């Protein structure tokens, strides 16, 4: 096959256009560095989003054969496999902005409770950085993209300096916050990357609640409008669409020399050369690229002399609990859309009470889905039918409350992504396989998570919908994959240094969730943005010094 192999050597090639790749491209181009970005898809047309389409209109459109824009990657296009019986749900977005088009917008800083966890308890490697290293970058990210929240720091949730105004709380949220307080647990304003007033030229939220379909006015952070558009205005950014990266190429000098990719639709193979490469294709796809980048020097994947790449996959454990607050039953339904998703958050607290746990690490809780929803799925769990049933559904409708606790999963070597012996994709490149399970540590933590959630619900006097204690949502469903190309001080036990730079291959940086040493219980995007900014600051400085 003829391979198009352009002679140009690019200054920096960035792979991926989501939070990680977008931040890398933005921060490098504004410092005068030329960037060529490879995106596995194209731009999503914001005007096509089905944002202001009511549920019944949605149905009418579907019945006429219309469909909303396909934002999530259809896994049939790029298959993956898992080790039975442990299904791993993998949600990917190929196209401009990646998952930031439809992300949950929860923007939580890690604290030293998170960064110091492994150093304190000795489970796996310590983080090479602490809160003080990343705090200035959190400050900059929050000022740049706009994060709303309260002035209510906790030791496990620091840094509320730059918040935009938080949205008012819904009735059900007030009840759960008060109920948690009675249980001795703090519930604070949630911190979300939603622009609640005009910020840096971005339109404010108009509280339509349809964020999951993509925002029609870009009122929440997404890499396309917030990072890549400004980067393009510098004239320093070139974006190559539909470039599905297969491998990173290694030169005789031990450095990365370029990238092999395939056109998503024509399947034409291409190679571009680059002096430095930043990989930010999201944890799982980045790992697949690294593992497939085999050479004589690195037979198990580029930069993998430690053997850690692909291992230590850690997602999070989570479940959902629903109930109805008696005080709100039978009240008039309000417009509870707000900024879409919850306005409150329960930061980790289990390190504070001095009680020794029989497990390591911790959990927090989210609260989306409180109040009037565009549907009443809970009715399926109420008995009966007929007029009494109809009344029972209506009575409970404004009173719905929900908790969604998230717990940390420990990094374990056997939780891994591999490409050995897997089927190849339509470009002839090995697909990925995920082996994943939780252990006793998570099971013990989950027991306390259930006790906590039930305790808060009972303190709110809620009628709790039936639940099965110990039930977990699918592995992967939090969409918080981490750890498969982790950073650390020790090159024998980690792939990257504290600046996301490979120990082995100095001109290759990996800036997405795969770089995390641990998963924490928190949503990772804000930390990915801060780490990618810090990493590319370091990279630009090394370039200026002539070291890179």
């Amino acid at each position: 096959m003829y391979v198009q192999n352009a002679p140009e050597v690019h200054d920096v090639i960035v792979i991926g256009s989501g939070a990680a790749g977008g931040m890398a491209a933005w921060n490098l181009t504004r410092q005068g560095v030329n960037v060529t970005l490879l995106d596995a898809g194209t731009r999503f047309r914001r005007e096509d989003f089905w944002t202001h389409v009511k549920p019944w209109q949605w149905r009418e459109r579907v019945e006429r054969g219309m469909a909303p824009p396909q934002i999530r990657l259809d896994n049939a296009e790029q298959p993956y496999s898992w080790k039975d019986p442990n299904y791993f749900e993998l949600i990917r977005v190929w196209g401009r902005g990646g998952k930031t088009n439809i992300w949950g917008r929860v923007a939580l800083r890690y604290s030293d409770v998170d960064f110091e966890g492994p150093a304190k308890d000795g489970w796996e490697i310590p983080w090479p950085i602490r809160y003080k290293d990343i705090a200035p970058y959190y400050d900059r990210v929050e000022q740049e993209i706009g994060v709303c929240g309260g002035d209510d720091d906790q030791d496990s949730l620091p840094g509320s300096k730059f918040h935009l105004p938080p949205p008012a709380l819904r009735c059900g949220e007030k009840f759960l916050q008060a109920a948690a307080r009675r249980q001795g647990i703090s519930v604070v304003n949630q911190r979300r990357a939603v622009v609640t007033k005009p910020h840096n030229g971005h339109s404010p939220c108009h509280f339509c609640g349809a964020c999951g379909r993509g925002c029609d006015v870009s009122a929440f952070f997404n890499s396309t409008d917030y990072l890549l558009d400004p980067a393009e205005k510098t004239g320093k950014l070139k974006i190559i669409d539909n470039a599905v990266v297969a491998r990173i190429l290694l030169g005789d000098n031990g450095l990365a020399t370029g990238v092999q990719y395939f056109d998503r639709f024509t399947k034409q193979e291409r190679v571009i050369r680059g002096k430095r490469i930043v990989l930010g294709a999201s944890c799982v796809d980045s790992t697949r690229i690294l593992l497939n980048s085999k050479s004589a020097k690195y037979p198990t994947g580029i930069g993998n002399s430690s053997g850690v790449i692909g291992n230590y996959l850690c997602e999070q454990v989570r479940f959902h609990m629903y109930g109805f607050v008696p005080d709100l039953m039978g009240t008039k339904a309000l417009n509870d859309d707000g900024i879409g998703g919850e306005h409150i958050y329960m930061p980790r607290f289990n390190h504070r009470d001095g009680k020794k746990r029989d497990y390591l690490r911790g959990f927090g809780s989210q609260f989306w889905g409180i109040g009037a929803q565009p549907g009443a799925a809970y009715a399926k769990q109420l008995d009966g039918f007929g007029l009494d049933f109809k009344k029972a559904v209506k009575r409970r409708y404004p009173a719905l409350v929900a908790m969604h606790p998230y717990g940390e999963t420990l990094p374990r070597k056997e939780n891994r992504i591999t490409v050995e012996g897997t089927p190849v994709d339509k470009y002839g490149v090995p697909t990925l396989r995920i082996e994943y399970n939780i252990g006793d540590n998570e099971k013990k933590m989950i027991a306390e998570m259930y006790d906590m959630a039930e305790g808060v619900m009972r303190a709110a006097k809620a009628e709790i919908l039936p639940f099965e204690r110990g039930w977990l949502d699918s592995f992967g469903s939090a969409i918080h994959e981490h750890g498969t190309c982790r950073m650390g001080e020790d090159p024998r036990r980690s792939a990257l240094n504290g600046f996301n730079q490979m120990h082995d291959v100095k001109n290759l940086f990996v800036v997405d969730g795969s770089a995390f040493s641990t998963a924490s219980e928190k949503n990772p995007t804000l930390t990915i943005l801060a780490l990618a900014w810090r990493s590319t600051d370091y990279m630009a400085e090394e370039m200026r010094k002539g070291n890179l």
Partner: protein
Amino acid sequence: MLQASATLAIAAPAMQAQDHAQHGLTQIEKAAPQVARFFSKQEMNLLAQLVEQIIPRSDTPGAADANVHYFVDFQAHTNRKLGSQLKKDLSWVRKQGFAKAESGKQVELLTAWSKTKGTEPYRIFKQFKDLTIDGYYGSKEGLTQELGWNANTFLREFKGCTHPEHGA
């Protein structure tokens, strides 16, 4: 191919947001004439009776008023496995004399099926009940008239809980 530099107009943000909301409103489609695509006329009749008994008309519309039987028909049309199951189940419901029974007798039948968890009649009851819930509480009648939902719209300000007794 290089992506051309694209910019999104970001001036006068509130105005723009309102424009978008208005744009959404002008796109409200007229309700399509209801046509059954999967079930026969006889099956549709039975289905309409069934969903109406599950969520009947009160001072607000019932499930048949909200065309939930057409919703179920479309589910069957797009999921043939579900469709053939539902056909069998409707035939079973008919054999119980449901279609020709008085309303009171229909309620008796449904009550009996709803109280036998773990049995085939319960499975059939629960299946139609769940479909009715999805259909009714996703319809304009069910959401806005029955539940009072008034959201997915443009607001200049989000007030949160406005109940004075809950600290608003």
